[in-house]
């Protein structure tokens, strides 16, 4: 039974994916020729069932696990050719496949279907039974070789299989008898074996009694397309005797007749079995429906779709503000009183709040739990420890902690990196730990917990800890630490995040060359998080990565105003263009520009941002010319290539067209920079109070660009006027 809902849903979505591919593969199995099925397909089915088994085992779903296990066994036999892929077997496999789906579904609802489970086991057992019958069938084939009863008993299953493969291939069978003395036994035997193997298949070796006690006798069963005389030539140097065994062409015809008879009998019995199976397996209705329904009630949606929807919700909220301020003006104009205006504002505010909540809920859809990453991390830690000859136990807590999908993806590498360091450098080898009177088994803890709006992921070990003086010396030697300044231990520890830092002279295969922690810190910074480290000598270390639990990545266009850069979501940009100064009409705050045969207002971003008054768009104005400098715009979706750009760049003003309600508005900036994907970082709990800004993005050189929300900026301006 699975109690944890988040974990359950993750299990469901992962197993659903496996089941989907399993069922599809089983379907195409039906279209395969009996004798020569696509081995890649069978291997894939095998792997899928194997993964499903592992996944169910992890979730403690014993029934699913053991059914998958039995299925896996049968598939293994199929892979080895011990089971043929006839129509019956294919049908049974398909039924067991949907049976697994049903069991997973049952486990999800908390109602394991035991009868179903038993039935599927029986189905699988019937295939296994047939395979035994089949094995008996090949016994018949082996009979045809005329081996002694004793020799036949010595044959292993795989050898019997090889015999039948070679029989089917029409090869000839020989028994090669040799006798060697003890001294030359190994060289001669090996010599003979390799000689035979160069031109056929040595299937097995029987021992043979000899009259001379000093000699040891062998009989080798050899299958080859070679003629008897050729084999004799091969064996001659070893003094062996060769006898051809098995079917003569005459016996082969008789064998063929027998085979036909057997096939007919098999067909009859399988039809009977099929009828039985049908009678005994009338599906319970709920189950029959179940196999048609998806196992989990979740759907897969692209993250970009979710982002689009949340963006839309955001725009709706802004539009509501806009609408309400307009309506307010109409109410005044129409002579309505304060009461009506208050009511209007109230319901507009409510609507806006609901849109904002919608946006928030949509953003929450991006959240997934840490369960999967942690499970993988724990597994990886175990394997690493084994590879490094260390013994550790891994403890995991906070699997259910939710994080944005993108952060979970991006934090995986840093977690693994720190984990590797902890196992490689932190945890001591068992003998060292014993000497230090520690449990020879090291302990690694991986935790996730909430810290305000952030999630802290910690990796702790109880190893040797980090020695601040070693760190300091090392940092001084690579020039990463100030020599004359006194640092607190805390600050010294932070030096390990400097590029090129590594306290160990030994370069370990696992942890690499000390290019790591700086990369870890950079990755976490990019997410708007921070890395913290604490350590106690001899007791262990703790690395914490605090990351925001949500973030939004957008495609943004960077523009410049003065020496400041701003990012604008490309979704809010209709078009980028350069306007000639002569195209800009009107003065000061009331400028216009011709756009698509109509006049639209042109506003300077500088003014929208409250950074000062309007520029003078006069070609002779030097400051303006400098601001528009040499231009190198990057393409944005609907960009129109500005005509004659290169020639008169200084005369042209970079303008972006956006929409405000139904109207287009031109916003003049001072320089187009580039388009890029940015992670919008939160401005903290006060963020919503900063109007016109949705967040900020880190730029190179420690600068920050605000991510502007043009509709709200325009709205603020229209309210000011």
């Amino acid at each position: 039974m699975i109690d944890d809902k988040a974990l359950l849903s993750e299990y469901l979505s992962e197993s659903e994916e496996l089941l989907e591919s399993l069922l599809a593969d089983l379907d195409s199995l039906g279209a395969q020729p009996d004798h020569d099925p696509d081995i890649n397909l069978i291997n894939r089915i095998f792997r899928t069932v194997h993964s499903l088994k592992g996944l169910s085992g992890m979730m403690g779903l014993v029934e699913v696990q053991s059914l998958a296990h039995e299925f896996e066994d049968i598939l293994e036999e199929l892979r080895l050719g011990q089971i043929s892929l006839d129509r019956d077997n294919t049908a049974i496999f398909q039924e067991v496949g949907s049976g697994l789906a049903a069991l997973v579904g049952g486990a999800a609802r908390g109602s394991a279907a035991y009868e179903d489970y038993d039935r599927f086991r029986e189905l699988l057992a019937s295939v296994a039974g047939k395979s035994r019958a089949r094995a008996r069938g090949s016994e018949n084939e082996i009979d045809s070789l005329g081996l002694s009863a004793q020799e036949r008993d010595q044959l292993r299953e795989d050898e019997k299989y090889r015999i039948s493969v070679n029989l089917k291939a029409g090869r000839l069978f020989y028994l090669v008898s040799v006798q060697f003395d003890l001294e030359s036994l190994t060289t001669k035997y090996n010599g003979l074996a390799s000689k035979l193997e160069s031109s056929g298949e040595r299937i097995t070796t029987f021992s043979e009694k000899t009259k001379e006690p000093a000699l040891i006798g062998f009989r080798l069963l050899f299958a080859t397309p070679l003629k008897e005389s050729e084999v004799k030539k091969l064996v001659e140097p070893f003094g062996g005797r060769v006898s051809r065994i098995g079917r003569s062409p005459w016996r082969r015809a008789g064998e063929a007749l027998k085979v036909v008879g057997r096939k007919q009998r098999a067909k009859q019995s399988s039809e009977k079995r099929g009828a039985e199976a049908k009678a005994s397996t009338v599906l319970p209705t709920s189950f029959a429906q179940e196999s048609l329904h998806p196992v989990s009630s979740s759907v897969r949606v692209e993250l970009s779709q979710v982002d689009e929807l949340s963006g839309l919700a955001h725009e709706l909220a802004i539009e509501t503000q806009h609408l309400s301020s307009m309506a307010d003006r109409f109410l005044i104009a129409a002579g309505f009183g304060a009461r009506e205006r208050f009511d209007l504002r109230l319901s507009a505010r409510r609507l806006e709040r609901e849109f904002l909540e919608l946006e928030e809920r949509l953003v929450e859809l991006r959240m997934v739990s840490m369960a999967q990453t942690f499970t993988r991390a724990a597994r990886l830690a175990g394997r690493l420890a084994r590879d490094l000859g260390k013994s550790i136990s891994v403890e995991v807590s906070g699997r259910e902690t939710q994080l944005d999908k993108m952060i979970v993806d991006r934090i995986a590498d840093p977690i693994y990196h720190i984990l590797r360091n902890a196992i490689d450098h932190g945890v001591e080898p068992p003998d060292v730990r014993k000497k230090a009177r520690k449990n020879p088994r090291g302990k690694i803890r991986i935790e996730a917990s909430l810290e305000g709006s952030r999630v802290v992921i910690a990796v702790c070990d109880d190893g040797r800890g980090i020695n601040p003086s070693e760190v300091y010396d090392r940092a001084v030697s690579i020039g990463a630490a100030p020599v004359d300044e006194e640092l607190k231990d805390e600050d010294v520890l932070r030096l390990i995040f400097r590029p090129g830092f590594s306290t160990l002279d030994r370069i370990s295969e696992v942890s690499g060359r000390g290019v790591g922690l700086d990369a870890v810190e950079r990755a976490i910074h990019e997410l708007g998080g921070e890395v913290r480290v604490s350590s106690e000598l001899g007791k262990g270390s703790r690395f914490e990565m605090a990351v925001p639990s949500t973030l939004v990545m957008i495609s943004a266009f960077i523009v410049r105003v003065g020496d400041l850069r701003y990012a604008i979501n490309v979704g809010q940009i209709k078009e980028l263009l350069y306007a000639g100064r002569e195209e800009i009409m009107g003065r000061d705050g009331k400028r216009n520009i011709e756009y698509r045969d109509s006049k639209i207002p042109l506003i300077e971003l500088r003014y929208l941002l409250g950074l000062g008054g309007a520029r003078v768009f006069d070609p002779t104005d030097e400051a303006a010319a400098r601001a528009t400098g040499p231009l190198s715009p990057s393409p944005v979706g609907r960009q129109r290539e500005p005509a004659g750009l290169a020639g008169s760049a200084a005369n042209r003003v970079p303008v972006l067209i956006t929409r405000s309600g139904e109207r287009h508005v031109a916003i003049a900036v001072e320089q187009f920079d580039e388009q890029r994907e940015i992670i919008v970082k939160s401005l903290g709990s006060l963020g919503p109070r900063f109007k016109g800004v949705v967040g900020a993005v880190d730029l190179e050189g420690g600068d920050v660009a605000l991510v502007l929300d043009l509709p709200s900026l325009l709205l603020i301006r229209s309210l000011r006027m």
Partner: protein
Amino acid sequence: MAKGNKKAMTSFLEGLKAIHLGSPDAEKEEAAVNHVSVLLFRIGGEPYAIGVESTEGVVDCPRISPLPSPPDGIVGVASIRGKITVVMDLSLGSAQPEDRRRLILLRGDAQLGLLADRVEGVLSLTPRQVRSSGTRRQDAQSEASAGSELWPSQNYFKSEGREVPIIDTSRLAEV
């Protein structure tokens, strides 16, 4: 810390000691455990204090990106260790040249940083030295004019005859 700052710090601390020594009977009553640690700093030349437990550290202030029409007291944002920090400036414009300023990082979800011309250091105060401005308002009504209304501080202590406000971070976040 620059030399000039150290000098100012010393005189500042001496002033504080003077009050402290001036009331020896008060000292006896107060157990050391009750002491309050505050970070002393200056904004526009004026001394201020803030409880150490509500700070996260002090850094040199990087370039600030101004916010459009920000609330009073807030000037913009800066990136500190990969985290966007909202920069507050309580000096109302009469501050140090930009490149010399320090930023006191405050704890909490608001991601606030407080601009200071200079950070003097940490000082331990006895509970008796900490006074509530509730009484101050009554004594000095006239003082509670335009400027002091802005200060989000309820408590203060006296040094060199001056009131050093202890800034309350929970109020800062409510700007």
